[in-house]
């Protein structure tokens, strides 16, 4: 049985169908890349997973349990509890400029008060991501690659089952793309499933286990990376 399954997700903006009846599934520990040209609905699909866009229809099944089914209206706190299964690393990272690296990573854990050990966890994550000497730095002093790693640490701090990346290579120099590829693959130990939106075919080939190609909001092809590129 698949670990994470997305069934029949659709999202329209007015009359425009941005995501049209998309379904896919992932085994535990797999990395899925969502590819396709610009404006094809990749990012909207990712935003639907995190419920930044509320899907018109569809459902998510995680570890055999239906965690989400699109209904007419859903209370904000229910949406928030579903979001806890997902982490998202934004294309432009969206770090909080007024907080240090460590404060960025720990803010949500501190407010939600779930894990009393959240500070140590943050230290571990920063160390793992090579940012231990940047804990007290402010985001504007960091390079793009470092900011991205802070955003990753911030997402991992909350122990999501699925972590999503929106165009992880777009803000980086080409040499750094290889590093982030290795980094994302190393996250398999931390999270159960990884979903990456990218338009960079080379990157998708290197990073993923499965590929889903979208066309006009629909699934054009969904396959393992070996089959897709053979």
């Amino acid at each position: 049985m698949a670990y994470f399954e997305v069934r029949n997700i659709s999202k329209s903006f007015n009359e425009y169908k941005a995501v049209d009846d998309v379904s896919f599934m992932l085994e535990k520990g797999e990395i899925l890349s969502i590819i396709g040209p610009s404006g094809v609905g990749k990012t909207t699909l990712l935003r639907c997973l995190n419920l930044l866009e509320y899907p018109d229809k569809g459902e998510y099944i995680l570890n055999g349990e239906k965690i989400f089914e699109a209904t007419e209206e859903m209370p904000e706190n229910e949406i928030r509890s579903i979001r806890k299964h997902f982490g998202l690393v934004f294309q432009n990272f969206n770090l909080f400029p007024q907080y240090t690296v460590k404060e960025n990573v720990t803010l949500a854990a501190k407010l939600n008060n779930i894990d009393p050990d959240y500070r140590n966890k943050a230290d571990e994550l920063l160390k793992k991501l090579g940012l231990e000497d940047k804990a007290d730095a402010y985001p504007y002093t960091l390079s793009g690659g470092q900011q991205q790693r802070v955003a990753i640490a911030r997402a991992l701090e909350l122990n999501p089952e699925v972590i999503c990346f929106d165009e992880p290579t777009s803000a980086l120099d080409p040499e750094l793309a290889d590093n982030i590829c290795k980094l994302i693959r190393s996250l398999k130990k931390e999270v159960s499933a990884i979903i990456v939106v990218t338009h960079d075919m080379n990157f998708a080939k290197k990073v993923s286990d499965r590929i889903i190609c979208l066309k006009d909001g629909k699934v054009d092809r969904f396959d393992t990376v070996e089959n897709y590129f053979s």
Partner: protein
Amino acid sequence: MNRFFTVSYDLLLGFATSIRLFILTLLFALPLGLIICFGSMSKIKPLACFCRIIIWIIRGTPLMLQILVVFYVPGILFNMPLFANNRFLAALITFVINYACYFSEIYRGGIESVPIGQYEAGKVLGLNNKEIFFNIILMQVIKKIVPPLSNEVITLVKDTSLVRVISVVEIIKVAEKYTAKGLIWPLFYTGVYYLILSGLLTVMFAYIEKCFAYYRG
């Protein structure tokens, strides 16, 4: 020399009224501005529309005219000269409403200038709207509104001189008494008082800006 001190003291008493108006206006207009700001950004259309009309009227007419309207209209229209014995209160109410509207627009500009990604980053971290506003957005808004706010506050110092149209005795009104007696220099001398206060405010706002300079963005 003796006369210089007498005049200085007299002007200082007048300026005390100006400062009282200044402080009370800030005290009430800063929070009221926030309420008007939320009203004008509200999803409830009639409320937003009402607030925007008020802002348009207040920003679209001279403050001096507004002072006259608040002071005279209750008496003329309803035969209730509410402020006949308390001209200062009429001036204060006008100033509070006027400045609250300007402040509300500064707040709105500050809130809207925070990128939507900051709200979304808060959301994906599982925070609720209140947590997002107070822990993420507010600080960024304050940093952005300090410069326009300091501008407005310094304008307020000088606008207090308008209240003499309804015979509230502030510093220029005091100076005009001397002018009527043939002594012109006290009128020009009032400028020193304004300069000292606005100078202090400039230093204070520069300090506040410096407090937020530790980060960018």
